[in-house]
Each structure stands twice: as C-alpha cells, then as structure tokens.
C-alpha cells in the first residue's frame, strides 16, 4: 500500500522559495548603492491576520485573529515617489530582506497579493478587485491588484527591521477599517494548495489564475460581476477565474479556506485534469447529475486533503453565528450513491487520509489520486464521474489497494469490485428514482435508428436548477461508418401552450457530443421542441458520448409551473448522404 502524505513537499518548496528570495533583493532591483556611502539592509516579516471559525462553524471568530506569514508573495521596497527599489519573494515564515540600500533613504514596504514563480515548477496567481462602478471598467485581468502598504520611513544610518501585518479591519461589531487581511488570506490558502500539488508533482506548471474578491461581492444579487453581483463564490471553467464573496452583510468567504480550496479544486480540474460538470446550484444532500456530483466531491476532497483538515466550514455574514460544517471523514447526508457529492468526497478523502474512522483503515496517498486525475480521468472516453475516477484508480492499484477502494465504494452504495467500469455498466443504485436514471449511459448505434430517451425533474426542489439525477441523460454512441451525421433530438411529450404569452411553455432540448474530453458539437438553440446539428466526421469504431438535456427543467424564469415534469425525446444520428 502506498503512503505518500502531502507535507513531504514542503521542504522542496521551501528550497524553491528561498532560492527565489536570494537572501535579498529580487531580480528587478533597480536601486543599489548609488552614493557610495553606507549600505544597509531592510528586513523583517510580512504577515496577515487569519480568522478561524467559531466552534461548530457558528460564524467567524473575528475577535481573535491569528497571525500567519504571507508566504511566497512579492514584496517590494518602494522609494518616496513609489519607485521600486527592490523586489523579493517572502519566505515560508514571511521573511524578507533587502540589501544594499542607501542610508537615510525614505522607503516603504509593499506586499503584492500575487504568487509568481517561473521555470519548473511555475505558477502565477493574482488577487484582484473585480468591483468597478465607473461605467467603463477595464478588462477583469487589469482590475486593481490588492497590495498591502506600509508607511514611509527613513532607513537612517543602521540596518532597519520592519514587520508588516495586513489586518482584518474588524472593529468589534462590524468592519471599521480596511480589510487588508482578506486578499492575503485567500492568497495564502492557495499557496497551501500549490504546495499540496507539488508534493505529487514537483515540477508542475500551474496556468495563470486570477482570483477576484471585493468587499462588494454580494450573495444577494446575481448578474453583473462588475457590480459584485456574484450570487455565490464560484469558478469559471475554461477562464481560470475564481470569484469569492466579500460582502459583510450577505456572506464572506475569504477566511473560509475550505470554500476557497473547493473552488480552487475546480481550477485544478480545469488546469490539470478535466471536468464535464455543467456547474450550477447544488445543495448538500441532493442526488445530483453524475459529473456535477463528482466535480463537487472533488472540490470538497481536495480542500480537505490540501488543508489536512476534514471539516468543511462555510460561515455566513460577518458577525453572525451562521454557518454550516460537514465532515469529509464521516459526513453522511442524503441518499448514498454515485450522485451524492458528499459521499463521493468521503471516498476520495478516505482513500488519502490515514485516520481510521471505522470504515476507512488505509491510505493510498495523494500520488495515485493525482496521477489518475491528471491521466486517465483527463483523457478518458467517458464523462468525468466517480465511475471513471474509481475504475481507473482501481486498475492502477494492487490487490490490497483494490480491496480498500472497493470497501469505500461499497460503503457509499456505489458499484465496486470487478463490476466497476467507467461506464457504470453494473450500477443498480437509482437514487430512488424509478425511471430515467439507469443505465447511466444508454447505448446507441448511429445508423439512423430512432432512440426514445426520457428525463424527469422529480428530485428538483426550490432552486429548480436542473441538476438532479434523471434530469439529463448520457448516450454512448458507436459509429458504424466514418461520416458526418445529422443529429436530431425531437420532443415527443406534448407541451400544451399556456394562456400567458410570456411563458416559455414549449420544450427546449439540447445536446452536446464529445469524443472523450473533446467537445465536437453542441445543439443548443432555443428552437421549440426540436434540436438539430450536423457533426464533424465521426470515425467508425470510435466510441462517442453525448449529454442530453431539457433546458426547461432549469429555465426558472421562463418555464410555467404546468410544464411537464417528464419529457421524452426521439434521438437519431443519421449518416449524411
């Protein structure tokens, strides 16, 4: 059994960081001792206040922040006119040093909310303020970068020591000062995630990530990112943009490190692996569409592993006692199965952690999980679900490891053993939904024949998000001829018109067709009851997959209450003449 725990990489990364520090000025130092007089050093540490949650995740303990070093961030020494006199990278303990500074120079410290590293490994993380009500905002990537600034001081005639702390701005019952700690708390949490990845791959190259946080990023309104109307914290797949809440009146996430790394886990999938999740709303305990369930489970498990802390905690508005916590070790919410994000998260976490919780008495470590996520999970033929992950992982383990993963899957009522494959061929758990759930993949031969496929929103609740099991369907398509294909998805369930002309009372079918990770074509028009598209050339003998949906199941602002809760469609792939 492999045991490869995450913190082993800290030493290696520390060496990298310290090498970057260079013991003093960074590479773009442009000052030096110009006058020939005494040369001095300015040194110290840069820190931020981190806020832990209260017991049971009953809000944040803002009255008792803890000091943490700002690690791996860019530290600058500025002159009186803000010219950069030196640049360096803070160490693991937040230390910095600038040497060769002229005596009697007016200087001040600046810490930039960024992590920059070139070479191998490399990374590029910036924390910026997305809020801009000017009416003419610059592109998101050019929005203001957060910096923590010290005040000007005269270095005098001897070496200077200066420690800088970004504070929370909490005034006892509300925020009364600048919330300087927040962007650095986010940055440092991400630094932890980077280290965790490096423990499995010491030369990993992280694509650039922009993180957006603002005191005006609210949970109460959604729509305009410039106005901070996030609705919730989120990650935009394909854009490498992570948005976090900061509005003290509605919800703040800067100190909810599990939330930050949950979303960063989605970045990991985007940058290093793959996710076929459509995203969208999901409540704990729901039975979710398979790819969404796995993606969210991955976010939970990654956060718990990287933080070496199984308790997920998401606090609410500043100063409130609101929040909820969940154990990635023992949590059990909703119907167990391949559709339960928390159940899958406990499987992944329990594969990694070494604590024995009764049902989990082993560990395969992070390395094998990382290898599967960056290998077969990224390139496989099937959608990214717990089946693709677990089947590929199981195949890479020895007998002892296979028995271990089988025990974890069985605990969550997910098919295991030799019956496990990436297609869920032998899965029998239908989440209690009698129809339109299994088989997870419906087989179809693209010969022009018509397949009738149904879906239903039996499990959708108040949010009407279209994300529950049964609301979407997967196809596994075999192609007899190398050709282009005309794809048709036509509603066969009647959708009677309502009296309200504002209702979108007709079916809106959509489909997405893939060759493994590669999307080939999508049919997502707003045409009533019918969707059509012509594929590029499909190769005979290749297995393709398709995702089918009834858009009205999530069209919360358009579909009438009378819209059918079960819709069926005729689907066909016909070779072109």
């Amino acid at each position, binding site marked *: 059994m492999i045991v490869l725990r995450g913190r082993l990489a800290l030493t290696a990364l520390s060496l990298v960081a310290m090498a970057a520090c260079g013991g003093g000025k960074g590479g773009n130092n442009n000052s030096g001792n110009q006058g020939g007089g005494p040369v001095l050093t300015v040194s110290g540490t840069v820190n931020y206040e981190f806020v832990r949650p209260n017991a049971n995740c009953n809000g944040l303990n803002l009255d008792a922040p803890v000091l943490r070093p700002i690690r791996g961030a860019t530290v600058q020494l500025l002159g009186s006119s803000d010219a950069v006199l030196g640049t360096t990278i803070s160490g693991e303990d937040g230390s910095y040093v600038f040497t060769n500074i002229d005596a009697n120079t007016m200087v001040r410290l600046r810490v930039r909310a960024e992590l920059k590293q070139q070479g191998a490994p490399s990374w590029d993380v910036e924390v910026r303020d997305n809020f801009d009500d000017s009416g003419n905002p610059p592109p998101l990537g050019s929005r203001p970068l957060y910096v923590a600034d010290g005040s000007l001081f005269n270095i005098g005639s001897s070496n200077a020591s200066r420690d800088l702390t970004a504070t929370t701005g909490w005034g006892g019952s509300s925020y009364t000062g600048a919330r300087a700690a927040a962007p650095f708390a986010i940055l440092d949490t991400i630094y932890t995630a980077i280290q965790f990845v490096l423990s499995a791959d010491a030369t990993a190259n992280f694509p650039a990530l922009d993180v957006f946080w603002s005191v005006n990023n609210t949970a109460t309104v959604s729509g305009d990112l410039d106005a901070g109307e996030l609705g*919730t*914290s989120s990650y935009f797949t394909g854009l490498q943009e992570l948005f976090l809440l900061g509005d003290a*009146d509605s*919800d703040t996430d800067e100190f909810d490190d599990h939330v930050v790394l949950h979303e960063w886990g989605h970045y990991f999938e985007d940058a290093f692996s793959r996710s076929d999740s459509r995203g969208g709303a999901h*409540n704990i305990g729901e039975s979710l569409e398979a790819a969404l369930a796995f993606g969210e489970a991955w976010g939970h498990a990654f956060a718990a592993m990287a933080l070496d802390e199984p308790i997920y905690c998401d606090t609410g508005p500043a100063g409130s006692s*609101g929040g909820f916590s969940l154990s990635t070790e023992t949590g059990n919410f909703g119907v167990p199965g391949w559709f339960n994000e928390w159940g899958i998260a406990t499987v992944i976490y329990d594969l990694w952690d070494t604590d024995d919780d009764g049902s989990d008495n082993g560990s395969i470590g992070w390395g094998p999980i990382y290898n599967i996520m960056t290998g077969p999970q990224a390139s496989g033929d099937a959608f990214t679900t717990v089946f693709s992950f677990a089947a590929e992982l199981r195949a890479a383990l020895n007998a002892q490891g296979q028995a271990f993963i089988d025990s974890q899957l069985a605990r969550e009522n997910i098919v295991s053993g030799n019956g496990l494959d990436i297609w869920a061929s032998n899965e029998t758990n239908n989440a209690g939904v009698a129809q339109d759930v299994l088989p997870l993949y419906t087989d179809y031969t693209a010969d022009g024949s018509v397949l009738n496929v149904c879906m239903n929103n039996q499990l959708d*609740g108040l949010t009407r998000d279209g994300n529950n099991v049964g609301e979407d369907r997967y196809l596994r398509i075999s192609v007899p001829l190398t050709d282009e294909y005309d794809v048709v998805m036509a509603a066969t369930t009647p959708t009677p018109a309502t009296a309200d002309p504002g209702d979108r009372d007709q079916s809106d079918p959509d489909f997405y067709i893939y060759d493994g990770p590669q999307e080939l074509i999508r049919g997502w028009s707003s045409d009533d009851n019918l969707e059509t598209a012509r594929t590029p050339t499909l190769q005979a003998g290749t297995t393709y997959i398709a995702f089918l949906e009834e858009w009205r199941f999530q069209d919360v602002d358009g579909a009438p209450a009378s819209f059918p809760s079960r819709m069926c469609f005729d689907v066909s792939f016909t070779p072109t003449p």
Partner: protein
Amino acid sequence: MNRMIFPMLALLATALSACGNGSVDESDADVTPSTPAVNFKPGAQGGRTVKPQGPVSIAYKIIGTPIVGQPVGVDLQVQSTLGPQPITLSYRVNDSTAMEFAASQEARVSIAASDDDGPSVQQVQVVPLREGRIFLNVSATIETEDGTMSTVTAIPIQVGAALRETTENGEVMTDENGELVRSLPANEN
C-alpha cells in the same frame, strides 16, 4: 439561444411557481431562490461551478413595496434537502437603525416536518426605518446525524430608490509600471 445567460440572471427575481406545495398561494409567483446566481448552463468556455449550499433551501418574496415606517411582509419558502424534518428559523437584522421587527414578530420560529416533499411557508414582518438596501438575515437550522447545521440567507429589502450601498476598501492607485493596484494600509512594527 445563447446559453451564456449570466446577464439575464439579474432578472432572477422571477417565478418559482413550480414549488409543488398546495399551501403556496398562486399569487406568490415572484419568489427568489436564496442562491440566485447559479442556474445557468455553460457557455462556450464551460460551466460555472459554485460552492455548495447547505441542506436547507430558502426562497423568498417581499410582499408589496417596502416603505419607511410601515410593516412589510417577507414570505419564506423553506425546504430541507435531507427530507421532511423540523426546521428552526431565526431572524436577525444587521443594522438596528435601518430596520426592526414588527411588534408581533418572533425572532425564532420552529417549523414541524412537512407532510410532503414540498417547502414549508412562513412570513416575517419587518419595519424599515430608513431608505436603502437593508438586509434581513434568516438562519435555518436542522439536526443531522453530524449535529446541528445552520445556513444563513441574507435577504435584501430595497426601501425607496436609494441604490445599493457599496463600500470602499483602501485606495486605487497606479504603480510604477502603470498597473492599477488597490492599496490597503497595513500595520507595521
């Protein structure tokens, strides 16, 4: 149809009439889910993944137009995703100079497990004391095998025409390289 409907989500204070509970008045059409931003499909780039919501969904509707000094009702629909079970609701106003509870309003309400899978309905009465966007915090608590779980939803109540109040945090300036930075003052010693 362009499925990158993020701009459309500003319009999401719209019908959720498919709540499936006969106790919900048909006139209560404009109910806002407490997670308003998240029900859109992927654009060409991909999806938007969001953090999980707790095991209680809350949707709300503000009854009528809030006016300073006059009670206004907020209808709540509450539903556990863990099945029918008792839910305790606690109400809190962040800024007591901006809003208070109506005289008869209890700050804490216990809701018995519903008879079906539909949401339970409650109404909260508050009195705005000034114009602006004022927040009512609703905390929903349930008991699970893992202990007590509480989720808080901040409900914005718009009083008058005053725009949403935004907050300054530090100062925007341009650094030596012409890049915009938001300068936050730090403590030193």
